[in-house]
């Protein structure tokens, strides 16, 4: 979606249309969550400090965010997506990957389909969207930024490699600020430069990420569109106001964390079997200890007892600045059955 939060605000309040608008707090420490295209002309960007934005654009109008409303619009958009494919991987409220390999709507091309999707979104929400169409998630995402706002770009299979060769290195997926700097020092400024290096060489420089860099610049990305991003774990952690080391303080903390993580489990209607305790010490070293139970966790006490045992079986000597408990090995409510009696087997 184009300038999503700002566009929703302009849609709901026509007085704001055509005006430089920022969603976010305008206080001393406020940060811009989204800026309208009108505001962007003045150099206002998302994640910019509000104070700086005000300097760049003195007549900037600040609107507090209304996330419930954005969520509502987001659902409307997603419903459009699901008419075209079941394989929708939401990336944010206003962004998603769609795998349209299986062409259930019988469009002549993905490009034509993207046009229709954008048309549907405009008709149903009054908002404009941009699309990128290509052979994998990374190139599609890059393409979607090219003709913003209210546009789309298709990078056809035979265009992918030449396109990537000219692409500035910092645009590559997995290349952050630090890696980009490092690559530039090595004379890698775009895809073609990166492509000139062997995988073995990249390995010496970038370790585990080498394979990814080697492949992505050749248009190879084996990352499927994941229709359901499932939660792997649920839990909570706290950085303590003051470091603690007394047993009673630790126990109180464990009890608090156990209560909170159990509440979260209940709220999300999930059941878990593995309890992980994370402890960060005053010297910033950190340990994690975990235990997998035979059946799913049923109570707060269970979490407390296990976490307590995990901690005190080998009590660390340093004082603690952070503690966390997380529950993994999650099962959904409907998959979960109460522990059933188990038929034992002869030990042959």
């Amino acid at each position, binding site marked *: 979606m184009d300038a999503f939060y700002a566009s929703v605000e302009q849609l709901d309040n026509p007085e704001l249309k055509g005006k430089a608008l920022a969603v976010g707090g305008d206080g001393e420490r406020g940060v811009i969550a989204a800026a309208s295209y009108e505001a962007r002309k003045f150099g206002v960007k998302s994640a910019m400090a509000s104070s700086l934005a005000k300097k760049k654009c003195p007549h900037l109008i600040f609107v507090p965010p209304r996330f419930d409303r954005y969520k509502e619009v987001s659902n409307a958009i997603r419903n459009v997506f699901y008419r075209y494919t079941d394989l929708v991987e939401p990336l944010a409220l206003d962004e998603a990957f769609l795998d349209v390999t299986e062409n259930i709507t019988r469009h002549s091309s993905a490009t034509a389909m993207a046009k229709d999707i954008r048309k549907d979104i405009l008709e149903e929400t009054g908002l404009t969207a941009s699309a990128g169409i290509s052979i994998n998630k990374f190139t599609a995402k890059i393409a979607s930024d090219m003709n913003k706002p209210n546009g789309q770009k298709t990078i056809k299979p035979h265009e992918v490699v030449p396109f990537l060769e000219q692409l500035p290195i910092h645009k590559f997926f997995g290349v952050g600020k630090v890696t980009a700097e490092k690559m530039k020092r090595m004379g890698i400024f775009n895809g073609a430069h990166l492509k000139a290096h062997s995988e073995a060489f990249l390995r010496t420089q970038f370790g585990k990420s080498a394979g990814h860099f080697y492949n992505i610049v050749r248009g190879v990305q084996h990352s499927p569109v994941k229709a359901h991003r499932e939660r792997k774990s649920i839990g909570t952690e706290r950085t303590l106001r003051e470091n603690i080391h007394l047993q009673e303080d630790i126990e109180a903390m464990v009890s608090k964390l156990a209560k909170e993580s159990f509440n979260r489990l209940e709220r999300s209607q999930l059941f878990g079997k593995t309890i992980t305790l994370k402890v960060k010490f005053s010297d910033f070293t950190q340990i994690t200890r975990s235990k997998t139970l035979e*059946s799913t966790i049923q109570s707060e006490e269970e979490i407390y007892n296990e976490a307590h045992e995990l901690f005190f079986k080998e009590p660390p000597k340093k004082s603690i600045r952070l503690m966390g408990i997380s529950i993994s090995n999650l099962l959904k409510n409907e998959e979960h059955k109460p*522990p*059933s*009696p*188990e*038929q*034992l087997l*002869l030990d042959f």
Partner: protein
Amino acid sequence: MNFIVSSSTLRKGLQQIGGVLNASNSLPILDNFLFELSGQDLTISASDIENTMRTKVVVDEGKEDGKVAVPAKLLMDILKNFADQPLSFSIDTGNFGIEISSDYGKYKLVGQNAGDFPKGQELENANEITISGDIIVNAIDKCLFATGNDDLRPVMSGVFFEFSEDKLNFVATDAHKLVKYTRTDGVANKSADFILPKKPLNLLKQNITSEDSISINYNDTTVRFSFNEIELTSRLIDGKYPNYEAVIPVENPNVLTVDRISFLNSLKRVSIFSNKTTHQVRLKVAGSELSISAEDLDFSNEAKERLTCNYVGDDIEIGFNSKFLLEMLNHLTCNEVILEMSEPNKAGILLPVDKENDSEKILMLVMPVMIR
């Protein structure tokens, strides 16, 4: 090849061996009985490759020795519908045409070349043991129900025959339950063992009576049971039988003695209320009271009964699959049974108190269903 035979004699012979035939066969020849006439002796065979069974029928009149394969289903079906009467078979061994004449009329069918019928398994370097039918009948009756059905562990799908110089053991287990049946009135001249599959066990069960004398010939791959006029040759299950002795607990300090029929009937009633998947019943013993209970949380069903018993040991609560207990109690004939236990997560051992036969020992073992 011509003969005259009593329809009921022939039917009886076919029924003895008909169990070998499979409902569907990949080899059409296996849908036939093999008839071999030699003088007045008509030898009839049936085979499913793994098992070959033959029997001998004496015909009233035989002319021209010969052999032919006769379609089994057609023959059995027509024989079922005759009152006892002499049937005259006339077979053209050239084109395998078979003509049967009865009091009522004529029936024609076409057989197959006897040469296509599989040759029975050879039995080279065989050992021999002769035992009474009573042993085999009882061993099969006590063990067969405890065999497993797991294709991944074929050795447990049969009954383990273990012969030694002082006793014969027959063992079956599916890893949940185990039966060991021992006889000391039959011995072998040297130790040997083999695993006999379910099908031949059932065929033996159908045909052996306690009065028969059974001669068993066996080598590593094949066994042949011969009794009366019947001969059953079967391929054995290849593999090593699990070390069953190792799983029979020795120390079982908690000993419950209870009337078998009362226990059985209680279990029948209570198990109706048990969970349909686990069939779990709980046995709780304290003092001289045995309480049997079951519940099915899915439907809020529950049942509880009490029985008086003799009990030596610590109070215990242990869960079992009621189906297993019922099967085991049903396969015992004694008035009272002993249930030996140690822990709720260790096997329970069921033993008969009173024995019909002094040379017989029965041990049944069942693994608990853990109570949670």
